[in-house]
C-alpha cells in the first residue's frame, strides 16, 4: 500500500492565506473599477456582519447543539459598547476630516471592548442558562435577550444621564466599518472558529452535542466546555454588533428584538446546523438575495419563515448538513483518486 498524498501543514496555511489575499484583491479591483458601486459595497459589508453573526450562532447552535434565542442581545451589547466607546473618542471628527488611518487604534479598541463586554454577558447568562436544556434553554436565552433590550431602552431614566439614548437611538457614530475592516474581521472570525473547532476543545464541544452523558462519562468537563463555547459565540456576536454599529452610524434598541435573533437562526438552520460553510453561504444568500429581489421585499420574511418550515419537514439537516469544505482536503482527495486509478491500471497491466 503506497502512502497517501498529503499536503504539509505549512503549505496548507500558505494556500489558504494566498486565497484570502486573492479574494481581497478581487473585491478591491471590483470596487476600484466601479464594477461594484458603493451601494453594492454596502451590501458586501452587511454580508460580512451577517457571516460573523451566523457563524457565531452556529457555534452554540450547530456545534454545541443548543438553541439560544437571544443572539441579538449579545449583538446589541457589542454594538452599544463599541459605539459608546468610539463616540467618546475623537474618531468622529477624524473620520469627517477624511483621516481614515488615524482612527484605526480606536476601532481596534472598540472591537476588543465589544468582544470582552459581550463575552462577560455571555458568561453571566451562560452559566445559569446552560444548566437547562432544549426548550427551556431556548426560552431562558430569549428572556435574557429581551431583558438586555429593555435595559438598553430604559437605562437612561435610572442612571439620570444620557448613556444609551433609549428608544430615540444612539446617533452620530463614526461609520468606521470599511470594506477592508470587514474583510479582515470576517477572516479572523472564521479562522478563530476553525482553529477552535479543530482543536481538542472543539472536539469536546462536538462530543457534548452528540451525547452529553457519554461525554461526561469519559471525563469531559461538560459545564466548562458548554460555557466556553457559549461565551465564544457571544464574543463574536459582540464583534459583529460593533461592526454593525460602524456600518449604520446610528443604533436603535428596537433593531435587536427577538425578530433579529430569529433572522440569524434562519441563516444557521438553512445553511445546516454544524456547517460553517453552510452558515456562510446562507448569510451571503439571505443578505444578497433580498437586494436583488427588491420588488419582493414585502414577501421576504414570509419566504424566510416558509423556507424554515419546509426545510425542517423535508431536509431537517439544512442545505449543507454538517459538511464543511476544505480546499486542501479536496485537492488531496482528487490527487489520491488519480493515483489510485493509475495504480489500478498498473495492476491490471501486470495481471495481463
Amino acid at each position, binding site marked *: 500500500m503506497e502512502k497517501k498524498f498529503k499536503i504539509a501543514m505549512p503549505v496548507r496555511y500558505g494556500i489558504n492565506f494566498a486565497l484570502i489575499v486573492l479574494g481581497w484583491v478581487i473585491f478591491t479591483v471590483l470596487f476600484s473599477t466601479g464594477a461594484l458601486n458603493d451601494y453594492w459595497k454596502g451590501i458586501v459589508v452587511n454580508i460580512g456582519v451577517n457571516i460573523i453573526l451566523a457563524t457565531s450562532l452556529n457555534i452554540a447552535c450547530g456545534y454545541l447543539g443548543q438553541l439560544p434565542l437571544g443572539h441579538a442581545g449579545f449583538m446589541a451589547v457589542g454594538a452599544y459598547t463599541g459605539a459608546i466607546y468610539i463616540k467618546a473618542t475623537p474618531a468622529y471628527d477624524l473620520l469627517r476630516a477624511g483621516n481614515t488611518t488615524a482612527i484605526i487604534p480606536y476601532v481596534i479598541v472598540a472591537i476588543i471592548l465589544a468582544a470582552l463586554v459581550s463575552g462577560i454577558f455571555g458568561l453571566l447568562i451562560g452559566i445559569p442558562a446552560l444548566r437547562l436544556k432544549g426548550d427551556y434553554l431556548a426560552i431562558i436565552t430569549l428572556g435574557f435577550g429581551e*431583558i438586555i433590550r429593555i435595559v438598553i431602552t430604559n437605562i437612561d431614566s435610572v442612571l439620570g444621564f444620557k448613556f444609551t439614548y433609549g428608544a430615540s437611538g444612539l446617533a452620530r457614530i463614526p461609520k468606521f466599518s470599511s470594506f477592508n475592516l470587514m474583510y479582515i474581521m470576517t477572516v479572523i472570525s472564521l479562522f478563530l472558529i476553525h482553529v477552535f473547532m479543530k482543536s481538542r476543545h472543539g472536539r469536546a464541544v462536538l462530543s457534548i452535542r452528540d451525547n452529553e452523558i457519554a461525554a461526561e462519562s469519559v471525563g469531559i468537563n461538560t459545564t466548562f466546555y458548554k460555557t466556553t463555547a457559549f461565551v465564544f459565540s457571544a464574543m463574536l456576536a459582540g464583534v459583529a454588533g460593533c461592526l454593525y454599529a460602524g456600518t449604520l452610524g446610528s443604533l436603535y434598541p428596537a433593531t435587536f428584538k427577538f425578530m433579529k435573533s*430569529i433572522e440569524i437562526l434562519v441563516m444557521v*438552520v438553512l445553511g445546516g446546523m454544524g456547517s460553517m460553510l453552510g452558515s456562510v453561504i446562507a448569510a451571503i444568500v439571505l443578505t444578497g438575495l433580498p437586494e436583488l429581489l427588491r420588488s419582493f421585499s414585502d414577501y421576504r420574511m414570509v419566504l424566510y419563515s*416558509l423556507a424554515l418550515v419546509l426545510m425542517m419537514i423535508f431536509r431537517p439537516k439544512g442545505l449543507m448538513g454538517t459538511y464543511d469544505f476544505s480546499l486542501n482536503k479536496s485537492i488531496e482527495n482528487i490527487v489520491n483518486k488519480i493515483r489510485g486509478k493509475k495504480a489500478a491500471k498498473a495492476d491490471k497491466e501486470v495481471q495481463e
Partner: protein
Amino acid sequence: MTFSSLIAQFINGLQTGSVYALVALGYSMVYGIIKLLNFAHGDIIMVGAYVVYYAIASFALPPMLAVILAVLVSTLLGVTVEKVAYTPLRSAPRLSLLITAIGVSFLLENGAQLLFGADKKSLDPMVSGSFQLGGVNVSYAAVVTIVVSVIAMVALTILVNKTKMGKAMRAVSEDMGAAQLMGISLNRTISMTFAIGSFLAGIGSVLYLCAYPQATPTMGSMLGIKAFIAAVLGGIGSIPGAMIGGFAIGILEALVAAVHLSMWKDAVVFLILIIVLLFKPAGLLGKKTQEKV
C-alpha cells in the same frame, strides 16, 4: 397609592391574567402531550382578533356571531398547523420541532402583516361601561373576562378529568407508546388537544379585545411568550398550574405598572421566568422529571 387604587389595579391584573391563563392552558396542554413549545400558539390569538375585527368592521356582523366565528377560525387554524407542520415531524428531534414552531409563528405574523397591513386596526370596545363597587370603579369588560375564563377553565378541568377524551389525553401525555398499545388513536388525541388549546386561544383573543380593542400582526408574540412564562411558572403540563401562573403574571404586571415602572414590566416578567427556571424548573405545581441514560 391608596387602597382603592390598589384594588383597581388588582382587578386589572386579574383581567389580563385570565387572558394569560387561557392562553397558557393551550401551551401547557400541547407541551404536556407532545413536548413541543408551540410558538405559534400566541399568533393564533392574533388571527382570532383579526377575524373579530373584520367580521365587525367590514361585514357588520353582530358581535356574538363575530365571536363564534373567531373561535371557530382559531380552532381550525390550530388543528391545521398541527396537521401540516407538526405531524410530519413527530419522530424528528425536538430541536427540529421547535424550529418549525418558530417558523410557523413567523409565517403567521408576516403573513398577517402582508394581508392586513402593519398598522393597528382599532375597533369599538365590545363591552363598555362600568359600575361602582365599594368605591372602586370596575368595568364590565373585566367582569366578563374573569367570568368567561373561569367558566372555560372549569369546563376544561371537567373535560380532562371526567371524559373519555380527557382520559386519552392524559394517557398520551404520560406515555405515548403505551397509550397507542391500549388502542388510543394518537393522531386523534393530539389533534383534539390542539383543537381545545386553540379553542381557548380563540376565547382568549376575544377577551383580549375586550381589554385592548385593537389588532396588530405582532400582538400575539409577546402575549404568547408571557402566557408561556405563566405556564412555566405554574408548572408546564399542569392545568391548575397554568391558571395560577396566568393570574400571577397578570397581577404582577399590574402591580409593576401601579408603581409607575410599566416600561420595565416585560423585564420583570422575564426575570421571574429566569428565577423560576433556575430554582424550581418544574414550576409551582409541576412534576419533576429525571433524565434517563
